[in-house]
């Protein structure tokens, strides 16, 4: 299926940035959670999900991201998002993700806040 999600990981200024491309449905959400898990196990405490290549999500996929928030609370780390479409941002606000995760317009804005 062409709807599958592609992920790319880069490390910038102590922040692990995960770029998504495609539909974040249940499989996509699980894929992101798996990658986040590995990054956390590798000692990363600050994760930035750059959704620049994602134009569509569903609530099942986004629900799975709540697991990442849980893990971040446990390790006192931080999860943030950037480059959301207006609709995805609205979805995050409806779900209350915005209370537990930073939401930034773009990567420079996110890194200015997260990097150290």
């Amino acid at each position, binding site marked *: *299926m062409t709807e599958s999600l592609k992920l790319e990981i880069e490390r910038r200024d102590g922040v692990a940035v995960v770029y998504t491309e495609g539909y974040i449905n249940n499989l996509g959400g699980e894929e992101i959670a798996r990658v986040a898990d590995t990054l956390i196990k590798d000692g990363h405490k600050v994760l930035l999900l750059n959704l620049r290549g994602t134009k569509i999500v*569903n*609530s099942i996929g986004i*629900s799975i991201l709540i697991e990442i928030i849980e893990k971040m609370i446990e390790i006192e780390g931080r999860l943030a998002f950037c480059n959301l479409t*207006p*609709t995805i941002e609205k979805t995050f606000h*409806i*779900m209350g993700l915005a209370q537990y995760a930073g939401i930034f317009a773009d990567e420079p804005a996110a890194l200015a806040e997260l990097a150290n």
Partner: protein
Amino acid sequence: MADEGIMREVTLTLPIAADMEIAATKTATAMAESMDMAADKVDEVRMAVVEACINAFEHSHTEEGKIFLTFAVLGDDEAESLRITVRDSGQGFVPEDIVESKIGDKIHSESKRGWGLQIMRGMMDTVEIESGKDGTRVVMTKAR
């Protein structure tokens, strides 16, 4: 709504299969664009359609193996709103029994799910649900 005529109506039948909700978003897009709905609003319609479809796919347990959608452009001389109906002939549910989800309750709890109806209501102007033993019909509208 009752006063508004149906200017054009498209129906779509989707099999219950992975990612078939994407086909529904394409029809929604074509209909919304045909009435010159603003791009951001079209995107919200797509999100609501995805949620309504995956609910019917996942929860209806319909034996038909498919769901039925109708896209109607409402208005008299000019297109005024888009009405989308997502119907399944599954087991139904009692919408009033569904409690609002809160993120604080979901964290560290077993299920993180339960956001679809809230998202649909957030994206559309109106969302009405009729559900019973013959299945579920979700009727959503959004003005142009």
